[in-house]
């Protein structure tokens, strides 16, 4: 056994013991979903004391952000160590102590593009779960064309004055701060006049309103900026180079998908729904054939997520091919839910019927192939960047 391997084995023993000693028993092996997740932030209230205790202990050891530098409250772990940590967490059935857009999105962007003051100011609050962030990219009317930013920030000498509107700002009504794309040069070409800005949601002039979806309530909001005064130091990276940060985060996001693709398929399985129905249902050859075909594709897609993960873990990037996972996974998930609805028959037509929230889940899947880049954008990416097909 090499030294490195030995060290990793020791780390595994250590971290495994730590999890066992520190994660409250009440949290182990529970379903992990919107209801049990810990988002943190000023407005946050824990569902129970154990969640709070678990977060505090994890913060102390830097394990809310295992690979971030220790100085910002991270764990300073290597890639291999982080992987072991995640494996042991899964093995123990321990929930992540904290989840947030700060950990997933803003933190990586600040580590790459932020200045020292910004890192020192914001990263520790993220790792400690004190500040909850939301993302302000999309605007009404922009759709897939993310660079079509109309929200503008005017340079008023000692501050920026921001006006405009964002849409699809998830959990904006519960977030403390927002990181957003704003237009700082109206004369430059579309991609060249955008900056990346941080704003406290309590700043006067910022209001937010939840969006009701066809599936019912949603975490999405519209967020309005009406002459919002933003301190100069809250611009990240270079002026008018915000698109670089946005692209970095989009790639980061897709690689997260490529590195696991959690959530690309919903929690329900086709067989589960079928099992709830009368046996004779399967006598319908059309439904039965569709169930088989969907199961074939679901299994093969699951293996594909695994293969891409293997590839990422072997240090070979997945790159633009991850657009395929987004495309295929979301289209497949829509198909799966269509099938489940057909299998459930009239039992599936109620908002809260025999299959619980099947109908709203089904309606919600319709957005899978829109949010985070539409299927059409993914196919464009595959055609242009993977297959290198010519432009129009």
């Amino acid at each position, binding site marked *: 056994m090499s030294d490195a391997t030995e060290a990793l084995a020791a780390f595994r023993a250590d971290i495994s013991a730590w999890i066992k000693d520190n994660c409250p028993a009440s949290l182990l092996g529970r379903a992990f979903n919107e209801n049990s997740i810990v988002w943190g932030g000023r407005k946050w209230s824990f569902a129970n004391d154990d969640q709070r205790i678990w977060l505090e202990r994890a913060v102390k050891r830097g394990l809310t952000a295992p690979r971030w530098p220790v100085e910002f409250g991270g764990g300073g772990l290597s890639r291999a160590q982080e992987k072991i940590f995640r494996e042991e967490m899964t093995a123990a059935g321990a929930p992540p102590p904290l989840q947030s857009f700060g950990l997933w999105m803003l933190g990586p962007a600040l580590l790459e593009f932020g200045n020292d003051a910004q890192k020192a100011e914001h990263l520790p609050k993220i790792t400690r779960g004190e500040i909850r962030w939301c993302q302000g990219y*999309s605007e009404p009317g*922009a*759709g*897939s*064309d993310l660079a*079509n930013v109309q929200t503008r920030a005017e340079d008023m000498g000692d501050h920026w004055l921001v006006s405009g509107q964002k*849409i*699809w700002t998830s959990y904006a009504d519960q977030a403390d701060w927002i990181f957003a794309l704003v237009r700082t040069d109206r004369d430059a070409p579309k991609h060249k006049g955008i900056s990346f800005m941080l704003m406290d949601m309590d700043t006067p002039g910022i209001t937010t309103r939840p*969006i*009701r*979806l*066809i*599936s019912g309530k949603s975490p999405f909001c519209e967020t309005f900026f009406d002459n919002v005064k933003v301190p100069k130091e809250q611009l990240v990276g270079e002026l008018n180079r915000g698109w670089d940060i946005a692209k970095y985060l989009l790639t980061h996001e897709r690689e997260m998908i490529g590195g696991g693709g959690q959530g690309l398929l919903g929690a329900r399985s086709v067989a589960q729904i079928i099992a709830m*129905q*009368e046996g004779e*249902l399967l006598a*319908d*050859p*059309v*439904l039965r054939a569709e169930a088989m075909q969907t199961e074939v594709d679901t299994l093969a897609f699951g293996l594909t997520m695994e293969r891409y993960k293997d590839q990422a873990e072997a240090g070979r990037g997945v790159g633009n091919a991850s657009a395929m996972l987004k495309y295929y996974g979301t289209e497949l998930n*829509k198909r799966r839910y*269509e099938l489940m*609805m*057909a299998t*459930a*028959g*009239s*039992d*599936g*037509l*109620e*908002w*809260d*019927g*025999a299959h619980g929230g099947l*109908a709203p889940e089904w*309606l919600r899947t*319709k*957005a899978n*192939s*829109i*949010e985070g880049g*539409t*299927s*059409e954008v993914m*196919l464009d990416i595959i055609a242009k960047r993977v297959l290198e097909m010519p432009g129009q």
Partner: protein
Amino acid sequence: MKDAAQTLIDTEDEVMLRDAARGFLAEASPVSALRANRDAGRAHDPALWADMAQMGWTGVLVPETAGGADMGHRAAGILAEEMGRVLAASPFLSSAVIAATVLRQAGPAAQGALQTIAAGRATYALALDEGPKFAPAATAMQAERQGNTFRLTGTKAFVADGTTASRVLVLARTSGAAGDPEGLTLFDLDASLAGLDRQALSTIDSRDHARLVFDAVAVTGDDIIGDLDNGLVALRPGLQAGQAALAAELTGLAGGAAAITLGYLKERKQFDRTIGSFQALQHRAAHLWSEIEVTASAIANAGRVLDNAPDDAALAVSLAKARAAQTAKLAVSEAVQMHGGIGMTDAYDIGFFIKRARVGAEWLGDYGYHAAVIGAARGI
């Protein structure tokens, strides 16, 4: 030259009927009316139903002797198609199509009932399905006989227009066991009878659907439509009429969703282009249009066959319902995807189309049910 009513194209009368219906519904029942109904917790608007009665739509299949307009199934399909385009909610299918067709076969005794339907004074619901899938022969509900009295006990799981209807057609078992197409009897009863509990279901299409729980509800032999133990025969024409009209509604729905989407594609700009100029979307829109065209032929045909050769309508009706369910599904999927995020918001109308398409796909037999009818008829 063939008489136009023998062809698959609209006759002059039908063109006029369609235009009139479209004009009226655009005014009286745009999609915003469905939204208003939903927000008010109302399954449909009685005033709209009164207007439909005024125009003779409630009596579209009622003989003139009973005060109806007797326009036939093709005409009923045209009305249903236009209602589908704007998602107009009413008991039209349950009452004016299914019940009227059943009752007009029932001889002189049903004249009065037909009159109340045509006049819009009574509305009907059909209480049939007991499980999650359309399966008339699977009916298990007991109608226990004592002399000329029958006591109905059991649950009907999914009854369209079940909470608002004033009368209910109920299929129940007077002999045999679940799965046996014989031994069923069709009753016509008042919806307010003692022992009948009507539980409103909160369905995704915001229309009236109910679970009907029968606890020894007493009816008599006079309430039987058709013959004892032969209820499926009495019901079949009504079922077929309902299936054809529902298929027409779904095809109208597909056309409505496609039209809204096409309008959006022509207007919406992204990446500095009208998105309707993207060839991939053009081809998908053209494909959808083709599917709707092909389905429209099956709809027209089902109406014609029901009018001209009703005894041979099974294949034509199942073809219409199968194609319509599939086409509506495609139309609403493409509609929401092509709209992008805005189509997912409750503030936009497309969501209503998706929801109604799903309900319509299930009610009165899903794609697989009707495809199997066709397969059996065609030796597959």
